[in-house]
């Protein structure tokens, strides 16, 4: 296999991991009936919080411990993103605000906050005006010693930081949770038909809050992986996280709300996004056209699943609708 192909597959997997986190968080959220279009904003929040936490730690410690770097950035990212989800939950569940508007607002809010503090961090970092959290990034990118040197297999399967594998584990666990456990069944019922769930004695509000906050936390990990691993512990104000966030939303549809599908779907999206690397003689404008491929595939999938009308492949039936028990 040529180096070019290997590099393409590696890039696909890295790229896919970012959106897989975003999509998995959103799947969990949508299973509770909340359509959170704030995924890009939440990924921004996760990215900037992780970066800021590790920056302040590294900045104040001449000899930072890798483990501490990892833990505080991870917790900061997850926590900040979950807080974003909490804000969304409060607005849409408790105050019953419109979910679409709230989600879009959250996207704008997250992007604004992240780029504002990203710029501030760049200034504080001094030097060339580019923040870099080398120690933390190294911790995120550390591979398992020995395995990454196994030739082709090592390059293809073991050349990534731990978050690539965590994403896969998370997807499998989530699949098992949603399809095999009691609480998973309850959560799905909330998203399908909250009145039914309520009549069955399930606490709809608690399920929605939990799923939305946890889901936002998981989505936020996508932003963390992007800043720490994908762009190696720096900050870019170029809006990439936002476009990746929308791709994550598209991936939720592509995966037909199934975490297992999100695994291969995200890698496929990555492959489609980077496939221009192996096509020789492309001008810059052609590259941009190729980057549209994941979206085109999503549209195609939407058309196909709409035509087939299989009930199991449809979004949760109450997606986007507020629930109020005494409403009539």
């Amino acid at each position: 296999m040529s180096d070019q192909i290997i590099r393409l597959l590696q890039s696909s997997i890295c790229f896919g991991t970012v959106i897989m986190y975003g999509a998995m968080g959103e799947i969990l959220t949508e299973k509770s009936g909340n359509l959170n279009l704030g995924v890009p904003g939440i990924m921004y929040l996760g990215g900037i919080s992780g970066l800021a936490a590790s920056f302040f730690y590294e900045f104040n410690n001449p000899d930072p411990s890798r483990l501490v770097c990892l833990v505080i950035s991870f917790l900061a990212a997850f926590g900040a993103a979950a807080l974003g989800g909490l804000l969304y939950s409060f607005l849409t569940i408790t105050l019953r605000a419109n979910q679409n508007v709230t989600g879009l607002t959250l996207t704008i809010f997250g992007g604004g906050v992240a780029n504002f503090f990203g710029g501030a961090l760049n200034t504080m970092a001094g030097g060339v005006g580019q923040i870099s959290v080398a120690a933390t990034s190294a911790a995120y990118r550390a591979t398992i010693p020995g395995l990454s040197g196994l030739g082709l297999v090592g390059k293809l399967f073991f050349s990534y930081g731990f978050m690539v594998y965590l994403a896969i584990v998370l997807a499998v666990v989530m699949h098992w949770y949603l399809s095999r456990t009691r609480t998973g069944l309850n959560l799905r019922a909330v998203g399908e038909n909250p009145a039914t769930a309520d009549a069955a004695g399930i606490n709809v509000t608690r399920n929605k809050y939990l799923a939305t906050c946890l889901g936002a936390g998981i989505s936020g990990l996508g932003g963390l992986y992007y800043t720490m691993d994908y762009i190696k512990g720096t900050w870019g104000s170029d809006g990439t996280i936002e476009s990746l966030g929308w791709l994550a939303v598209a991936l939720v549809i592509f995966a037909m709300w199934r975490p297992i599908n999100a695994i291969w779907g995200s890698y496929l999206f990555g492959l489609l996004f980077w496939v221009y690397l192996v096509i020789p003689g492309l001008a810059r404008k052609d590259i941009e056209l190729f980057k549209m491929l994941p979206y085109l595939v999503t549209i195609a999938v939407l058309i196909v699943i709409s035509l087939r009308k299989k009930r199991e492949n449809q979004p949760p039936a109450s997606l986007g609708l507020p629930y109020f028990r005494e409403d009539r």
Partner: protein
Amino acid sequence: MENTYAIQMKHVTKRFGKVVANDDVSLDIKRGEILSLLGENGSGKTTLMNMLAGIYFPDEVEILVNGTPVTIASPKDAFACGIGMIHQHFKLVDIFTAAENIVLGLHEEGKLDLKAVSARITDICQRYGFVIDPNKKVYNMSVSEKQTVEIVKVLYRGADILILDEPTAVLTPQETDRLFDVMRNMKADGKAMVIITHKLNEVMEVSDRVAVLRKGRYIGDVATADTNPQKLTDMMVGHAVTLNIDRPLVEKRHLRLEVRDLTVRTGEGVKALDGVSFQAFGGEILGIAGISGSGQKELLESIAGLRAAEPGSHVIYHPPAPDEPIAGQHVPVDRAGEELLGKTPRQIHSIGVSMAFVPEDRLGMGLVGTMGMTDNMMLKTYRSGAGPLLDRKSPRELAQRVKDELDVLTPSLNTPVRRLSGGNVQKVLVGREIAQEPSVLMTAYAVRGLDINTSYTIYNLLTAEKCKGVAVIYVGEDLDVLLELCDRILVLCGGQVSGVVDARTTTKEEVGLLMTKFRKEASQA
């Protein structure tokens, strides 16, 4: 003695904003007894029962279960008290199997083992005589199967007090009989049951005691053996009413609508109607009977122009002759008859073919839930009048007239119709269609869920239209009513006409058999 009462509700009051749904109601439910809860629409039956089931929280109440005071703040509390409610609108998740729906929300020990659940379900079914496949998805089920799942669901939770909210509204006579058998089995098992229904013959057949509510107040209770439908109706309404439908025979009947070989396919390509042919006459009520989903909806929709028919289908409209009283109110059409297929719904409506369809959720067709009565009247009239501004006066007058004539209970003409009780919503819909003075009036499930008094108001309205020379097509569920109200009955089965009978001479059994004539073929298609 404390064991005889399963539930005692004392001084229950519940308000929705300004509307008082229940006012100081006290009700006892006994063990090993089937209690019928009767009342007109909006009299607060469902609200009262919803408070037992934990859906609504009462403003003032004292509830005793088995003699012990309890507070029911959520459905969970209700289960803990052994109360289970089968709602009028099924509370099931469509994409789940029967077993998944049944265990939903339960906190049992151990991991989710659907096989063990299925075994227990089969056990319950055998005990009371149900038939159910635990692994069938709900969206593949018939209405009666869904209802069975609902009942098994509450039994699975160990409920010994069951509340059934209009359980027979969507069942065929045979399915109703089966349900009543199950109910009697449960009664023999010592369970307490409350059944809410509008059908007095069912009250007489299945219940032991009847409690009556009127306008949110408790009127009283009687043993079923000591009463009769007439007395019950008087109790419900508060004054004497006549329970006979006047069915005059109109001498001059003119051919108004001719349907020939009407074939319609659904979006999935399945034939919803297959070569349906019939004629409808002015001065006649043509009843359409059939199990729900036999093509009634498709039939009315294709006549009204809402649904495309296959080539070779014909719907011919014959306008009233100039000497008929209803002539000349609508757009003139060809005397020899005019094909309706291919025309837009608006054209068909302006010719004088009007449809009032009441779907299961009541708001799905014809009314906008968030708009008030006036605005809903305007939906049909906004095109009339000159100038760009809307004429709000005449719709308001029309709304007021419908409100007065049909006795619609609403705080104001501008209250969103979504907030009205189901029966009142229907009065608005049917009243508006009749006000269009059509020459063909199609109604589907016009009395679905309506109380007896309002139902008779609607029957009388339809009969009055018939006497004016209007061709009335009445799609109904209650066979007793079809037999009393209509002149002829057309029976649909699996999208085909399985028979046309004279309503004056036929029997309920004959119609019931026609309804299931091709049922096996239909389910295989």
